[in-house]
């Protein structure tokens, strides 16, 4: 990597535990989440949502609601005459759903926004919302991906030929020939329907101020949100400001610009008053993005000892109604891109379909297609090993990529430039076997228990093209660094912070890159008026791509600091070092010029600048990883990410034979995200990711009945508590990428992607005597109990 990505002369913060600057506010109740904001004269909305899964709207009666004291207005889609549908930038290869802030003519899921009550407060708005009457001509509901694939299935969008929003069927003749000539092993896997469930639901507050629209919202991208609003509302982008204050967790769910964001904006502009929406949890269950709900069919040509020669895969994702922006078919493509796992499988062809059903629209969620792939591939390998009678670890060893194989381009086009696939597996096998022996010793003689150990080894694309998040073909990030005359530093960037520690890494890297005390660095993010255009939070990208932009900007500032200091100190630039806010000749701390003196010279004593040096001490940079691709080649191959992290997971479990409950005795992980910036923050991401992965594996499931009625309330959607979450053992490997700034890879999603596979394999091991079919999640006690003969 170029020098412009180097840290400064004497880095002291990167790699250490820098505590987070926002924690003092968050710990004393002084955080400012969107729901905490109030404005004088503020009104609030309540949304009238569809009660049927699929139907034509034949009448909406709003008079009674409008007559309630304190109601300002009740609107339906018919009122939004100057609002445009959300665009579809992927229309070259997808069907276009009718995505509009309020349902037009038809509803396609329970929870779909049909009308909005604007009132003096939320209590009144909810009272009135109950008085809005909507008549529906109900239509048959499509409630599963299998149904959606049926040729005679009811269609959500009548003008489409079928329910397939995405349907990529690549030429599979080469793989078909290999399958025809070899022994073939087939399995089908499914992953249940999950949602991110951030503890803060969605919220938005819009205001017209100085003739412009100001929107405070929980979105993960200030600038993309602004651009999207400009597509939908009749407002120029220059007249929109989007601010994202403290956010109570995003996890991908807050990547979408939801109808309510548009509706409060439209109403604020129309009425000239601030308008707030604070989603309640009951709404969140049906109106915020769902995720997963994938099916993976794998056919593999195998040798007699189980090695995979070639794979043909069909991935199908259940999108729900797909009425969401940006559209959310990209997890299916991500699943497809991870179907070889970190194995040397040269021939793999994946057909990918994303289908519409009468359920809440699917969207982004941490892991974004990778947990599905890892579950399918790693369960497949365990089942394959059992089928041919070889050891499951040995089978992995025979196919796993070795360090000497790198760089390696997978069959789908991903460029694995570094990693520790074999090492991480060996580490967790070592730890896992020890833990398993302990479990055997403790529970082996208990007739009411079975113990098992399961493994998963994986790679995970990080820092992807934004196509999957916004349908834009871009992958850059921005950073602007400005040193003030007093030597304090203001950093702004397009990255955003939902709690993952973004603000802290920006401060940490800036301080090291400039050689200044971290206390002098002020970070400002997520205000589209105050920060350079960036793409924000998705795909575990911010430290990689935002970090790259930051280092580029810092490098420019550092160069200027040294040229001014060289003049002041009458010393050659190349002899100077910057540390702790002072510039001096290496090895001799005095004389020194302080950053404040240098910045003062650059900004308000330009009379002292050396000849040829321009005034000012600031730089703005953008970084787009060179190797990241946005469009597949003619064979469908693409390297969609700047980098690829890897991990191996091991789970040791005890199954209660009476109840089917899985108790996790040990959870062991070897993780490699390249260079680590802040160890506790990296561990925190892994812990949180594992908790979400375990939740989806064991407890969480969004169910619908045959009518498309949601059956899962918040109380039934079992987010793991401290009682369910095991202690983790985390081993770190650091294989820096040669192709990213500082060798950093992303860590935001790594923990989430492995648990389903590791737990599934552990369960298969524990219950091997019963030959259980473990091909779906969740693995709830009822499901597990049914695998055990009475």
């Amino acid at each position, binding site marked *: 990597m170029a020098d412009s990505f180097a840290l400064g002369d004497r880095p002291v913060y990167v790699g250490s535990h820098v505590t987070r600057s926002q924690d003092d506010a968050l710990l004393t109740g002084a955080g*400012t989440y969107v729901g905490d904001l109030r404005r004088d004269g503020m009104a609030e909305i309540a949304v009238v949502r569809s009660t049927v899964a699929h139907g034509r709207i034949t009448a909406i009666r709003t008079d009674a609601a409008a007559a309630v004291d304190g109601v300002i207005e009740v609107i339906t889609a018919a009122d939004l005459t100057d609002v445009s549908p959300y665009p579809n930038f992927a229309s070259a290869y997808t069907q276009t759903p009718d995505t509009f802030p309020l349902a037009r003519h038809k509803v396609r899921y329970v929870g779909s926004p049909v009308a909005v009550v604007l009132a003096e407060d939320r209590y009144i708005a909810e009272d009135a919302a109950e008085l809005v009457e909507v008549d529906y001509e109900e239509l048959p509901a499509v409630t599963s991906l299998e149904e959606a694939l049926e040729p005679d299935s009811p269609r959500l969008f009548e003008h489409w030929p079928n329910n397939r929003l995405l349907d990529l069927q690549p030429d599979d003749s080469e793989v078909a020939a290999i399958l025809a000539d070899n022994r073939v092993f087939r399995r089908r896997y499914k992953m249940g329907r999950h949602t991110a469930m951030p503890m803060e639901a969605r919220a938005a507050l819009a205001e017209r101020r100085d003739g412009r629209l100001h929107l405070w919202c929980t979105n993960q991208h200030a600038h993309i949100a602004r651009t999207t609003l400009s597509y939908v509302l009749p407002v120029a982008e220059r007249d929109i400001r989007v601010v994202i204050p403290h956010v109570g967790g995003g996890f991908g769910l807050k990547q979408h610009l939801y109808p309510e964001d548009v509706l409060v904006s439209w109403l604020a502009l129309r009425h000239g008053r601030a308008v707030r929406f604070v989603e309640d949890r009951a709404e969140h269950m049906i109106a915020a993005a769902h995720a997963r709900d994938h099916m993976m069919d794998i056919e593999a040509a195998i040798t007699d000892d189980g090695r995979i020669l070639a794979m043909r895969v069909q991935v199908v994702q259940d999108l729900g109604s797909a009425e969401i922006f940006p559209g959310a078919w990209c997890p299916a493509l991500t699943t497809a891109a991870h179907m070889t796992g970190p194995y040397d499988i040269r021939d793999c062809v994946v057909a990918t379909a994303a289908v519409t059903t009468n359920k809440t629209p699917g969207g982004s969620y941490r892991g974004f297609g990778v947990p599905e792939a890892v579950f399918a591939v790693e369960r497949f390998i365990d089942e394959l090993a059992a089928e041919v009678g070889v050891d499951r670890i040995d089978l992995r060893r025979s196919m796993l990529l070795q360090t000497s194989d790198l760089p390696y381009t997978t069959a789908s086009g991903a460029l694995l430039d570094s990693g520790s696939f074999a090492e991480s597996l060996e580490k967790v096998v070592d730890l896992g076997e020890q833990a398993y022996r302990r479990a055997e010793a403790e529970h082996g003689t208990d007739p009411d228990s079975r113990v098992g150990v399961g493994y998963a080894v994986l790679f995970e694309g990080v820092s992807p093209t934004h196509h999957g998040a916004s349908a834009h073909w871009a992958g850059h990030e921005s950073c602007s660094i400005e040193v003030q005359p007093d030597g304090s530093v203001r950093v702004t960037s397009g990255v955003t912070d939902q709690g993952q520690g973004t603000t802290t890494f920006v401060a940490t890297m800036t301080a090291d890159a400039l050689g200044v005390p971290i206390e002098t660095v002020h970070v400002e993010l997520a205000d589209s008026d105050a920060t350079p255009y960036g793409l924000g939070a998705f795909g575990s990208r911010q430290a990689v791509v935002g970090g790259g932009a930051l280092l580029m900007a810092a490098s420019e500032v550092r160069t200027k600091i040294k040229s001014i200091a060289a003049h002041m100190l009458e010393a050659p630039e190349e002899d100077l070092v910057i540390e702790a806010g002072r510039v001096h000749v290496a090895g001799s701390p005095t004389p020194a010029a302080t950053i404040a003196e240098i910045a003062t010279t650059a900004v308000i004593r330009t009379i002292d600048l050396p000849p040829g040096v321009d005034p000012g001490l600031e730089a703005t940079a953008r970084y787009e990883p060179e190797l990241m691709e946005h469009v597949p080649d003619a064979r469908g191959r693409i390297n969609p990410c700047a980098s690829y992290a890897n991990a191996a997971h091991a789970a040791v479990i005890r199954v209660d034979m009476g109840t089917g409950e899985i108790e996790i005795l040990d959870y062991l992980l070897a993780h490699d995200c390249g260079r680590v910036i802040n160890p506790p923050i990296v561990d925190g991401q892994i*812990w949180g990711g594992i908790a979400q992965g375990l939740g989806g594996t064991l407890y969480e499931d969004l169910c619908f009945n045959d009518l498309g009625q949601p059956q899962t309330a918040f*109380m039934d959607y079992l987010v793991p508590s*401290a009682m369910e979450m095991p202690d983790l053992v985390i081993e770190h490997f650091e294989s820096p990428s040669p192709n990213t700034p500082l060798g950093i890879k992303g860590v935001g999603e790594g923990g989430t992607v492995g648990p389903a596979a590791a737990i599934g394999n552990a369960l298969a091991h524990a219950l091997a005597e019963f030959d259980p079919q473990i091909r779906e999640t969740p693995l709830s006690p009822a499901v597990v109990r049914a695998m055990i003969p009475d």
Partner: protein
Amino acid sequence: MSAANARRVEPSVEVPISVTVNGETVETTVAARQLLADFLREELRLTGTHVGCEQGICGACTINLDGEPVRSCIMLAAQVDGSSIITVEGLSAQGLGPLQQAFKDNHGLQCGFCTPGFLMTLSTVDPDEYPGTAGIREAISGNLCRCTGYGGIIRAVRTAWDRPDHG
């Protein structure tokens, strides 16, 4: 039936209350149907009490009501007449108290939305009744966190309660 009807209060009726919040007496009237969480957040502007589910499940809105941890999202403001409430804003007179500092030092929070609920629950708990790490897990089992996987929170409580890693 008639007795019940006689006691019925219209939801919009204003009810007088006197309540001590973070040491200060508040005498006011509230709508009979106003949730305690909304009263604290919207009327008193103590927005550190967060509403995560409005169903009494997630624990984010937990406050200290006369020494007990209480979900302020499923209680009416009218019910706290005569009570004493502590919210996260009242947890420490100045800066961070020891528990808050332990959360910061141990990366016991990420997004911070659930954090006030954890702090308030823990502030009402007698550590001796929750021995060992298992006790800590039990003490916080009524509060959901989606970010941390509880690892940092458990470490923070161990630190605050001066408790070794295993036990």
